[in-house]
């Protein structure tokens, strides 16, 4: 792979294991201390950081949900006023979608994908660092505005004209729109990194039909992000233009259109659901295979279902708009396409059931969450089929039925697998096992609490309770069930509390895990737990779909990468034949500085359109610094 083997260019072929590790650690390490933390481009450190931040946002969003349940437990309660309540539900939705669900899935990929495909770092590692800082800034922007009582109050989909210049007073809707820009920039960056990592950095021999299913799911998700996110950035930017410089994209009085917003928003918003759900599907496939002690049944149909879901995801957005008065023919098309997505979903469920059927299921905590996922997600999928029907939807749209439906899909369909995935990969990330006892308690409380909280909402919705109301009147027959739901929400939060306690406890004193505690089959388990900064001492060569099961004793490895500079193998897209060795960037402070400059520009542009011009100058300077050659060995290539 390298052109020649001059003594000045030491490669991994020249050293024994211990000496090689020492040299690789020297090249790849992140220095200790604050400076190291700010400059690192190690995908594991950034991924871990991303995951922890996303879970902090999950906890904060959960507290908001509890506040809402407290207010709704009784009719005409005066615990929270309408203004604060509107901020709270807007924050809850925006926070969970933009600051928790999408980032946490991408974060899992940032950590796991490079390990699962057997490479030393993610593609564009500095962009990865930049992505995290931008995400953090967007999250802080939103939460600081909430602390100052000026948080967005127009719902997480910010329909115009309510969010427009005439009815959305102050800077609240602008803060929402800019928060979107922050998180979308961060998400797009990670999506590009994942596509390139999966296409070009796979271990030799990991042809397309040997890619682990989680990696496949993240690849499809990354393409969804790349195609869907521009729509919302367009929408939020035009909204800001309407509000800041007086354009009329959404003003019907001046030839604009209030429905244009909804089309743009949902063209993004529906794929968004699959951006959250598909990674979860990959997690389920991974966990089911490991704990059924057999390869997952129907690898090819599962991959096809992922791709089909990804494509269909772009053809259903109008089912969020069935009551705006669209032509019948259009509504019929979108009913049919929305129904059709049940087919790939069905294929996946049946393949997982077949895997369980043909395997020897072991009911460890990750598996419990997956079983909980099947039970709840099938309900969410079926209520999805219900709301896909236009006439059905006219009765339940914007009611608690829909609230129940999407929590079944998003919590049952994505958070359950995610919690399972945390239990599953925690040993790899931290080197320690989580507690099986606490895990079972967490699962039982979360599963029971979730169903008791959200199932009754279906009935509340059919009984006519609209969503997004800060209170309801005593004469409505909803009070008893709302009280029940609020109480159940406490059970659910208790479950999450147990989970967080377990995470903190296990980080400090969990049982030491070892390389492969679950006896899993994918490459991330072929290195130490936690993995060294260079991931793999020698790059594995993959000869089968489940490499650690088909070569249980020792993996074949590839050699020839230099040890004095950061180098990884670039391989071909289809067959993963090694093509070249490519240098990978060193640690740098510039991504952080660029992110700070971008943050200043984006926040400033809430207040003045000139920020886009003057604010671009510091960004330009930081990007120049970022790409300036520094005479490091990595610059040679």
């Amino acid at each position, binding site marked *: 792979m390298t052109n020649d083997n001059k003594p000045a260019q030491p490669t991994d072929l020249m050293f024994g294991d211990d000496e090689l590790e020492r040299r690789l650690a020297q090249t790849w390490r992140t220095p200790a201390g604050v400076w190291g933390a700010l400059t690192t481009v190690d995908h594991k450190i950034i991924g871990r950081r991303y995951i922890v931040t996303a879970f902090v946002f999950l906890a904060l969003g959960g507290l908001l949900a509890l506040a809402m349940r407290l207010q709704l437990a009784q009719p005409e309660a005066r615990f929270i*006023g*309408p*203004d604060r309540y509107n901020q709270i539900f807007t924050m809850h939705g925006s926070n969970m979608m933009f600051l928790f669900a999408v980032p946490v899935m991408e974060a899992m990929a940032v950590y796991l994908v490079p390990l699962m495909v057997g490479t030393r770092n993610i593609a564009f590692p500095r962009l990865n660092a930049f992505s995290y800082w931008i995400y953090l800034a967007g999250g802080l922007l939103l939460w600081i505005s909430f602390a100052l009582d000026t948080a967005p109050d*127009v719902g997480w989909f910010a*329909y115009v004209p*309510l969010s427009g210049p*005439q*009815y959305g007073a102050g800077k609240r809707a602008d803060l929402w729109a800019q928060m979107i820009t922050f998180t979308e920039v961060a998400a797009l960056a990670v999506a590009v990194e994942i596509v390139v990592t999966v296409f070009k950095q796979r271990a030799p021999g990991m042809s397309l039909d040997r890619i682990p299913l989680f990696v496949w799911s993240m690849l499809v998700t990354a393409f969804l992000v790349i195609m869907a996110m521009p729509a919302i950035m367009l929408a939020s930017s035009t909204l800001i233009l309407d509000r800041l410089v007086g354009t009329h994209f959404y003003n*019907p009085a001046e030839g604009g259109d*209030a*429905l244009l917003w909804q089309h743009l928003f949902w063209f993004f918003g529906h794929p968004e659901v699959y951006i959250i759900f598909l990674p979860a599907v990959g997690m389920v496939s991974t966990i089911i295979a490991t704990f059924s002690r*057999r390869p997952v*049944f129907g690898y090819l149909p599962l991959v096809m279902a992922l791709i089909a879901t990804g494509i269909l995801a772009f053809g259903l957005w109008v089912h969020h708009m069935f*009551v*705006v*008065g669209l032509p*019948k023919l259009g*509504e*019929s098309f979108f*009913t049919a396409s929305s*129904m059709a997505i049940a087919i790939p979903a*069905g294929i996946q469920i*049946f393949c997982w*059931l*077949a895997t*369980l*059927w*043909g*395997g020897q*299921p072991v009911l460890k905590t990750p598996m419990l969450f997956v*079983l909980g996922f*099947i*039970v709840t997600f*099938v*309900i969410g999928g*079926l*209520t999805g*089929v*219900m709301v*896909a*029907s*236009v*006439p*059905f939807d*006219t*009765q339940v*749209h*914007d009611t608690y039925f829909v609230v129940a439906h999407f929590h079944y899909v998003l919590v049952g369909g994505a958070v359950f697998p995610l919690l399972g995935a945390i239990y599953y990969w925690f040993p790899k990330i931290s080197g320690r096992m989580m507690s099986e006892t606490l895990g079972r308690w967490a699962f039982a409380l979360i599963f029971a609490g979730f169903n008791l909280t959200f199932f009754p909402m279906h009935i509340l919705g*059919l*009984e*006519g309770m*609209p*969503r*997004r*109301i*800060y209170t*309801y*009147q005593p004469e*409505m*027959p909803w009070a008893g069930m709302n009280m029940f739901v609020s109480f159940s929400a406490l059970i659910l939060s208790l479950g999450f509390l147990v989970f967080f306690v377990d995470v903190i406890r296990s980080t400090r004193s969990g049982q030491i895990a070892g390389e492969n505690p679950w006896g899993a089959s994918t490459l991330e388990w072929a290195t130490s737990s936690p993995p060294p900064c260079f991931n793999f001492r020698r790059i594995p060569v993959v000869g089968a779909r489940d490499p650690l099961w088909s070569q249980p004793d020792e993996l074949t490895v590839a050699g020839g990468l230099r040890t004095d500079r950061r180098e990884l193998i670039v391989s071909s897209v289809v067959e993963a034949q090694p093509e070249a060795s490519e240098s990978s960037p060193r640690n740098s402070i510039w991504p952080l500085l660029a992110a700070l400059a971008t943050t200043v520009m984006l926040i400033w542009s809430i207040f003045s359109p000139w920020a886009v011009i003057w604010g671009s100058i510091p960004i330009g300077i930081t990007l120049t610094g970022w790409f300036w050659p520094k005479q490091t060995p990595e610059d040679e290539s």
Partner: protein
Amino acid sequence: MKAGAAVVLFVSAILIAGCNGAQSALNAEGAAAVQLKHLIIGIVVVCSVVWALVMVVLVLALLRARTPRESPSSESERRMGKLVTAAVAATVVIIAGLTIASFYATRGLGMSEDATLAIKVRGQQWWWQFIYDDVDPAKSFQTANEMHIPVGVDIRIELESSDVIHSFWVPSLAGKRDLIPGRQNVITIRAERPGVYRGQCAEFCGLQHSHMALFVIAENMAAYQRWAAAQRASSVSSADPEATAGKALFMRKPCAACHTIRGTEASGSTGPDLTHVGSRQTIAAGLLDNTRGSLAAWIADPQTLKPGNNMPMVPLSSDELRQLSAYMESLK
């Protein structure tokens, strides 16, 4: 078994819910709502059965695993492949069936061409304006938050908004439809039986989205026509001295700038038309029963009762408050 019990529970909960009072999709009293209720129950039953079947397979797969058995052979894999294919085929059939059922229901809900009566609905933050237009402008009138309709005939509802998006939803009569600025949407409703049907704004519209209720009062044709005739008439002055004083106060204070009372010089159009406010059952979009006490409370401090609404607090003495509420109550 847990799965079966849950299905039974769900279906029975829905049936029980159907017996409840107003504003429920399962308490169908209109032609469209009855059709929708049948569709809803049909789809829910089919989906519950599907879910129960999946759960049965899941439980069997887990129970089966407890018995030790040989490692997966290519024979058993092939058999599972066939079963999965069959299950996917069944999914396709069920999905196609539900899609067709949905199309069929949509066709049944088509727009009526020969509606007896057309009512224009304007959504406002946070109340409903109902305009009964007539070719003869002298016969046109409007009301707020309470719509009377005759039973047994199709009513054409024309939906418009004067500010943000709202959604008109009276679940006992029909599904919802949005009111969108710059557009007009039309739906047909028809009540089969006399009654008071509650509805509520279903699209988030700002601070008081929660308090934007409406009532559709369906009555037989004769009663409806009596009501309409009364509404067409201008307001009549009451002989009661307190109410007379209240009327003078209304014209002097800022009230008249926002409200119309036909037959007087009050002709503001920002707030609800109060010509016959005394004849309505509730005030403030379903917030309070229409009594003299609640009228006084509302006039005295609308912002405490419904924070954020567009009616300002006008400082009044207690005598003035009494007079104004007497006048409002007299506007039958």
